[in-house]
């Protein structure tokens, strides 16, 4: 089954209101081309899931696509400062910040992946997070009677993962750090893969390095060179500083629209 399609089509498959997992970590291998296309298509009500997000979450908040963010950390790293659009959206009550520890996002994804409704966790022993958020609840160990915290499962409707290599059937290989993407692919109902390079159908079978994401978990494959830019992609490119700073300088919705129009046109990264 050939699952290759263009970015426009793949992103069109993400319904408004979806629980949406995003691959990568901060400015590293985030699926930025797909994120920009979501903004261009004016997705609404997305509920984002990510351990540590940055420009992806900020841009989607800026574009008004987001209802909530389940994450442990949302910021650019040191050099590019804070995610101002995300912050403002939360402060204005437009976006709900479901603050986790990065590990409780991982635990929630593990629970979904293991088909169980919750995951017990150590940690959170002294934290107001457990008190104010209903996705944390106490649970009793049936063996010792000890009380621990439980995190509610998060099963994304779809996750978007940017990989270096994929074949047309959906097998995808992540080179360099995999971050939480392998887990995310298992925890989600389906996966959209954007890839730097499309390889032939015998490529993984002939290689000692097997795909990290097997085809049967994947519903769409899109060939998007530089699909993580202006973020970095291991082994291929670093952060596109000028582009990123240009984005950080934008202020109005119109400025975002024209910036997006210069970068994506009907699903084709320009």
């Amino acid at each position, binding site marked *: 089954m050939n699952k290759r399609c263009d970015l426009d089509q793949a992103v069109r498959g993400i319904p408004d209101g979806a629980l949406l997992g995003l691959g990568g970590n901060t400015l590293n291998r985030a699926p930025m081309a797909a994120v920009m296309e979501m903004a261009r298509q004016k997705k609404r009500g997305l509920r984002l899931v990510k351990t540590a997000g940055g420009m992806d979450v900020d841009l989607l908040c800026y574009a008004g696509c987001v209802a909530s963010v389940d994450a442990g950390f949302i910021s650019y790293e*040191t050099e590019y400062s804070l995610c101002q659009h995300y912050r403002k959206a939360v402060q204005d009550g437009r976006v709900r910040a479901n603050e986790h*520890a990065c590990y409780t996002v991982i635990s929630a994804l593990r629970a979904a992946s293991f088909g169980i409704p919750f995951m017990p966790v150590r*940690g959170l022993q002294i934290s*107001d*997070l457990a008190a104010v958020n209903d996705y944390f609840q106490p649970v009793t160990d049936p063996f010792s009677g000890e009380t621990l915290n439980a995190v509610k499962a998060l099963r994304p409707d779809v996750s978007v993962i940017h990989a270096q290599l994929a074949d047309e059937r959906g097998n995808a290989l992540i080179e360099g*750090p995999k971050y939480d993407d392998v887990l995310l692919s298992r925890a989600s109902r389906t996966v959209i893969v954007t890839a730097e390079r499309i390889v032939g159908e015998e490529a993984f079978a002939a290689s000692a390095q097997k795909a990290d994401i097997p085809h049967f978990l994947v519903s769409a494959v899109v060939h998007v060179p530089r699909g993580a830019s202006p973020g970095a992609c291991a082994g291929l490119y670093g952060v596109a500083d000028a582009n990123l700073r240009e984005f950080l300088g934008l202020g109005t919705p119109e400025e975002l629209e024209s910036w997006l129009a210069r970068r994506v046109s009907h699903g084709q990264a320009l």
Partner: protein
Amino acid sequence: MGRPCDVMTVCLARLIRDGETVFHGVSSHMPMVATLLAKATHAPNAVHLNIPGGVDPHKPRLVSYTSAGDDLLETAEAAFPLQEVFDLSMRGGLDVAFLSGVQFDRLGSVNASVIGDYPRPKVRLPGGAGSAVLIPTAKRAIIWRTKHDRRTFCEKVDFVTARGHVSDIVTPLCAFTMYGGELILKTIHPGVSIEEIAENTAFPIRYLTLEQTPPPTDEELRALDHIDPLHTRNLEFR
């Protein structure tokens, strides 16, 4: 006296003991460099753990936009990614976690979540990343913060993202340590007065003995420039 970034980095590095497992996360250039410095000087057997999962990267080419990039994995010995580092801490095997935050009080509470009211905050902060699970489970959580004022070192944090095993807090002015459940002054950085620290700290300054932070040695400074030629440790001061 040394630049604040060098004094802080050296101060953090010296807190690492040989053989310890040490983790830092994103937006953590200073502890990343400190970990590499410790391994290059007094703690060659410290184990450097990080988000991309590169155990003991031999020669990472540090970049300014991330402390969680592929350079940490490229020359590493083994793969042990973030999920497993957390697991290690949860089962009691992580010695040191480097973390930060925006507010701290004398009980060692850390706030990295919000200023103001939680559901509709005045300021939404990035979040504690690993703090809420690492501060209670790592043997020692070491905090660094490049701001030292009365809003940062406050009487009472607006929100407790985490409390637990905070052992040390290093700032541009001084190093605090936890003693009997309370944050006390441990050393004062070169060129700083105790009055300056007291003025910029909302809780009372207490101490057992009053010592100066030994300034970075020539060996440490040489190693720093070798490890971090682009001075990423100074990013937070730029």
